[in-house]
């Protein structure tokens, strides 16, 4: 049945007709889509997968060398050297990927990632010196894995989902290393810094263009 009003109705300046709930849901969905696309696109150029593969290969090469060292000084020198080489390789890969994408080296998510990763790494460096001086070198593999993982988890919040997952795996490896016998330290270093970097690096390189 149709009811025709006898008199003209007064229209408010703003339409009083409520928006259908689907419109609200669609607007929310559009905003979510924009945010997710921006996140994916921003992460697209930030994390160098091949750089992580190189870092993993360096760690795998360093592990047998470190295991052969008789004293803690030689062992520490091998791993500090490997860390410096891995950082250089990762940095070079990051620079290459940024250049290929014609992006500033440290802009947006890349800068956030670096700033989030730096404090745990700096804490790790300071603790390494203190722990080595105290003669507690057997704690270092667990500590390094744990702190590196913490940095990757925090930095990874600005990146693709696989990055914080990798950080959590590092943290788990670190926790296990702290509980395991000291003689397993190099094995955990090889599995953690070698294996995890290789596996996650390959995933990132294949899915996120290098």
């Amino acid at each position, binding site marked *: 049945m149709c009811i025709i009003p006898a008199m003209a109705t007064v229209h408010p300046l703003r339409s009083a007709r*409520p*928006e259908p*709930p689907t*419109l*609200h849901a669609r*607007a*929310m969905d*559009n*905003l979510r*889509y*924009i945010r997710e*696309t*921006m996140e*994916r*696109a*921003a992460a*697209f*150029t930030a994390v160098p997968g091949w750089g992580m593969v190189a870092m993993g290969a360096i760690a795998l090469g360093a592990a047998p060398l470190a295991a052969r060292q008789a004293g803690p000084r030689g062992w520490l020198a091998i791993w500090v050297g490997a860390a410096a080489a891995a950082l250089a390789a990762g940095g070079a890969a990051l620079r290459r990927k940024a250049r290929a*994408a*014609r*992006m*500033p080296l440290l802009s*947006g998510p890349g800068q956030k990632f670096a700033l989030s990763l730096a404090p745990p790494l700096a804490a790790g460096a300071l603790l390494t010196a203190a722990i080595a001086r105290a003669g507690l070198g057997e704690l270092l593999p667990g500590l390094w894995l744990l702190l590196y993982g913490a940095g990757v988890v925090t930095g990874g919040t600005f990146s693709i989902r696989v990055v914080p997952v990798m950080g959590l795996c590092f943290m788990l490896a670190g926790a296990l290393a702290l509980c395991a016998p000291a003689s397993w330290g190099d094995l955990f270093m090889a599995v953690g810094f070698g294996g995890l970097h290789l596996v996650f690096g390959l995933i990132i390189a294949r899915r996120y*263009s290098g």
Partner: protein
Amino acid sequence: MAKSNARPADRPTKPRAEAPGGRRRAGEGAPELNRLIHERMRLGIVSALAVNASLTFNELKELLKTSDGNLSVHTRKLEEAQYVACAKSFDGRIPRTEYRLTAAGRRALERYLDHMEALIRATREG
């Protein structure tokens, strides 16, 4: 489907009557929905370019999980509206097509975001 009439980037001092983005009707305070970037694929292209200085055709294709033909159609519409700029070059022997968001495109996206937020606010208040 929105008309893909080419027009220069918006002029901030002059209100636009029939711009592809942020079109206004006479006497209406809020901008109309920008149909050009409301389409899901074009919204994805504009959003991706908003957080990158530029992206290649292949990067956009991989990011948005779409086909060459589909991406071409939608990037062309955005180019015609001057929301994105396209630069073609060669990387060795491989042709490279690169897109970047123009100032007009960025403004259109900002207006679209404002529109969506206003819509959500209005439905919550209502």
